[in-house]
């Protein structure tokens, strides 16, 4: 288990116009982490939100600090909306924990699922990713178009980028710190396909990737546009190979 003085787990949460749900997310994550016997940190990366996301985060930090003696989060604000991938990479590079979890702001996968991941990371695995497509995954039915998009995209990824992974897009992934930093610093795609790029990089660099079944619940408020985003994601998968040609193994 963890050295009591060092940060054991960093939780990176990218947020863009999340004023309506970031409070519930942050209360829940802070509540969960404050009950653990290890030291942790939360890094919120606001991707140039035009709403009150950052103000809500700051207020909840003050509330947690004053009323519950909780440590405040680190808030990083992008000066403009760059993309989820950029925000995740920025948060990971900033993270100091032995292990770094990236989680979507909607907590589609509950924070408690990290308990499955930590023993695997501690045993030496480099990258552990949540999966909605394994037999033991507990997935609430998704809207039809998202299910279709997800299946098609995973097939394209498997064919052109990285094979053997059933679900590249689940917003719940964890890294050993050095591995997370290495991958994040090499990221070049900052849109929704960043997950594929991260896994492509991990694979090409020789890092171990373990896919674990997770609970997943569909949350309203998704900004995915089925046709436009599908085309863009396909183009991104092709770009990943091009951008990272000549990559050599690190491990």
């Amino acid at each position, binding site marked *: 288990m963890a050295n009591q003085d060092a940060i054991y787990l960093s939780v990176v949460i990218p947020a863009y116009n999340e004023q309506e749900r970031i409070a519930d997310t942050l209360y829940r994550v802070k509540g969960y982490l404050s009950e653990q016997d290890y030291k942790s940190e939360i890094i919120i990366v606001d991707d140039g939100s035009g709403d009150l996301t950052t103000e809500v985060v700051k207020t909840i930090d003050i509330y947690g600090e*004053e009323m519950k003696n909780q440590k405040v989060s680190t808030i990083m604000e992008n000066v403009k909306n760059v993309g989820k991938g950029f925000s995740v990479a920025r948060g990971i590079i900033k993270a100091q924990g032995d292990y770094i979890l990236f989680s979507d702001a909607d907590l589609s996968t509950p924070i408690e699922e990290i308990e499955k991941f930590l023993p695997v990371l501690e045993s030496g695995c480099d990258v552990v990713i949540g999966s909605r497509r394994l037999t033991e995954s507990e997935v609430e039915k998704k809207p039809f178009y998202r299910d279709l998009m997800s299946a098609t995209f995973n097939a394209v990824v498997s064919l052109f980028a990285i094979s053997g992974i059933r679900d590249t897009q689940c917003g719940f992934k964890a890294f050993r710190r050095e591995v997370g930093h290495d991958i994040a610093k090499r990221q070049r795609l900052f849109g929704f396909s960043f997950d594929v790029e991260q896994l492509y990089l991990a694979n090409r660099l020789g890092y171990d990737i373990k896919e674990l079944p997770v609970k997943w619940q569909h949350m309203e408020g998704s900004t995915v546009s089925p046709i436009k985003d599908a085309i863009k994601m396909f183009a991104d998968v092709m770009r990943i190979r091009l951008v990272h040609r000549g990559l050599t193994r690190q491990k």
Partner: protein
Amino acid sequence: MEVVMQEYGDIVSFKPNVSRLDASQAVEFKDNLLQQVTVGKIRLLLNLSEVTFIDSSGLGAIISALRRVGVKGDVKLCCVADQVMEMLRLTRLDKVLEVFDSEETGIANF
């Protein structure tokens, strides 16, 4: 910052005469509130009728007062503008801080 204070028994109503309760005013506002707590006034009604904008600093001042009054005291709000109510809702502090339409109702509900 001009503040209008009025005592109703052991309750103190506290009305800041500023339109923006942000970082530029929050420290003074907080000092004023905590000064009351220091002299034993732990039932505070904040009349925010002049405040049309509040940010995390302003809410932070109120949260600090809430902590300092302890379990025996309380902090309640009244005459809250839409933007302030929205911030309370988004931060879920509307479940922690009671809000009343008027100072009279607020006093009556302590």
